[in-house]
């Protein structure tokens, strides 16, 4: 006979691992069955899945809580209850996201073909045509906006973190906060008003769109860079100063490289944030069916505006327009996903290795 040590660490018995998932499945099936039964009695043919889910979840929660409380004790029962609540909240948050991705992909694939990426909409009424002009426009306008915003944003953040003291710095911080809240349509109006001064009323230009987007991007870049510069330990700056390195070189060669990964990620997020802007581009870049590679001249199409106009101005063959709108939306989503991926890769390869 083996003598069992009486340990004070041993708690109550645990529920077997398979119990909770099988209870979940069981109660959902039961709930479904009940609904089928009710539906056949009241001869309304279709089954609503929302009550199935709610009833299944509630009965599962109750049953698991009671069983766990009896067998495992109060603490573990509470733990299971909270686990269910947190998982439910998570699933609820995920549903719109998955549903959105699903909708865009299923509706977008119809026109996600070679023609879509090789043709503009010039002389197209009805089927066919593509969004190459919009893709080029989006790349050029967002690219120029990035070229404008990144140097200004990074330098402003360096000023705020490394040099700014007193009233000027507080003012800059205040205006950055204000700029963060500027509605995008206001940025578009500003760019339009600015270009009217030089080119007269009715001006349409890709560059104007880039200016409007950079207005939206700059505060995001400043904020992200500021945060990254702030977390560079002061000890590194002091180490450089103690070696007789002047402040500007310390910033350039110690602080910036140390925070490069974070800054790059911030820039990617800022790009992703503005690439889907529609309203300001509608105002100043306008819309067109033709290719235009020149951001300094005439209207320029962009993907969000392409989606909007395809949907808003449907021609006779409505389905062709709607399909193109969804394909444009899918393209935009893929571009944002690629940007996020690039941001991750950058932060992986540039962050200081330990």
């Amino acid at each position, binding site marked *: 006979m083996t003598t069992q040590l009486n340990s004070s660490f041993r708690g109550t018995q645990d529920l077997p691992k398979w119990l909770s998932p099988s209870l979940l499945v069981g109660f959902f099936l039961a709930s479904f069955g009940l609904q089928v039964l009710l539906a056949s009695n009241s001869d309304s043919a279709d089954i609503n899945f929302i009550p199935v889910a709610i009833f299944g979840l509630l009965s599962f929660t109750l049953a698991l809580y009671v069983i766990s409380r009896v067998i495992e004790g109060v603490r573990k029962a509470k733990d299971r209850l909270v686990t269910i609540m947190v998982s439910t909240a998570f699933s609820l948050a995920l549903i719109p996201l998955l549903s959105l991705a699903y909708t865009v992909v299923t509706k977008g694939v119809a026109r996600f073909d070679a023609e879509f990426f090789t043709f503009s909409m010039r002389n197209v009424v009805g089927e066919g045509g593509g969004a190459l002009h919009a893709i080029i426009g989006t790349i050029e306008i967002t690219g120029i906006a990035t070229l404008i915003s990144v140097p200004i944003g990074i330098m402003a953040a360096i000023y705020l973190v490394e040099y700014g003291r007193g009233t000027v710095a507080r003012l800059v911080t205040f205006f950055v906060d204000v700029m963060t809240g500027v509605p995008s349509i206001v940025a578009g109006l500003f760019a339009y008003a600015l270009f009217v001064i030089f080119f007269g009323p009715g001006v349409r230009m890709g560059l104007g769109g880039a200016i409007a987007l950079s207005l939206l991007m700059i505060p995001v870049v400043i904020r992200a860079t500021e945060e990254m510069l702030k977390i560079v330990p002061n000890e590194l700056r*002091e*180490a450089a100063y103690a*070696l*007789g390195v002047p402040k500007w070189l310390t910033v350039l060669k*110690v602080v910036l490289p*140390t925070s490069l990964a974070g800054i790059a990620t911030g820039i990617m997020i800022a790009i992703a944030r503005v690439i889907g802007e529609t309203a300001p581009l509608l105002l100043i870049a306008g819309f067109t069916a033709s290719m235009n590679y020149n951001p300094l001249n005439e209207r320029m199409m962009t993907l969000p505006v392409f989606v909007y106009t395809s949907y808003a101005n449907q021609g006779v063959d409505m389905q062709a327009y709607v399909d193109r709108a969804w394909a444009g939306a899918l393209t935009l989503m893929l571009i944002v996903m690629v940007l996020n991926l690039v941001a991750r890769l950058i932060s992986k390869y540039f962050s200081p290795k330990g």
Partner: protein
Amino acid sequence: MSKRIELKSLDVYYKAFLAVEDVSMVIEPKAITAFIGPSGCGKSTLIRTLNRMHEVIPGARVEGQLLMDGEDVYGPDVDPVRVRRQVGMVFQRPNPFPTMSIKDNVLSGYKLNNSRMSKAEAEEITEKALVGANLWNEVKDRLEKPGSGLSGGQQQRLCIARAIAVEPDVILMDEPTSALDPISTAAIEDLAVELKEHFTVVIVTHNMQQASRISDMTAFFNIAGSGLPGKLIEYDKTEKVFSNPTEQQTEDYVSGRFG
């Protein structure tokens, strides 16, 4: 090269707060001078005035005179950046540059200042500094690896190598071993003793055994109460300070009665 440092009634302020009052002393070249005293008495504050590092803190300033081989460090056209090239500093927590390899860390004093050098020169300086910091044998096979991969004690010696690579006249160390284990501490102490053959070494320590083991001269600082300035109480040969101090406060401190 190593330089003699002379402090003449030096007061150090943080804005309006007088942190260290009226310090006059002569720090000898080719010797180790230890600053001891209870925490908050201004040891770090004072040592940072020796290479004008305290100026990094907004509002910090100095009154009085600081001479290095007779030259006024706070003279009107003195560039603090040039002072720091001649007075190296090692901090309490090892702080190698995380984006740089071991070799680049050693050469950082040159590279960060955009100095050009040949490959052969770079290798020679690296080896000399790492040998000087007793680190060469441990890292010679992984010079291209990041410096942050080393142990704490190795990182601290890397920081010392970085400081001596630019061939300064003076090396300041602010509690360089307080974040290290006893074995790494012993390695740094041995190194400090070797360094004094070429440099003026000033070391802040709250470890009195350390001061008595390695230093030639010891300065004891004390503070009368919080909010009051730290003062230099006694400055003499280390043996004298530890065995037969003149001041009662020093006696109390070194015999472990407070602090």
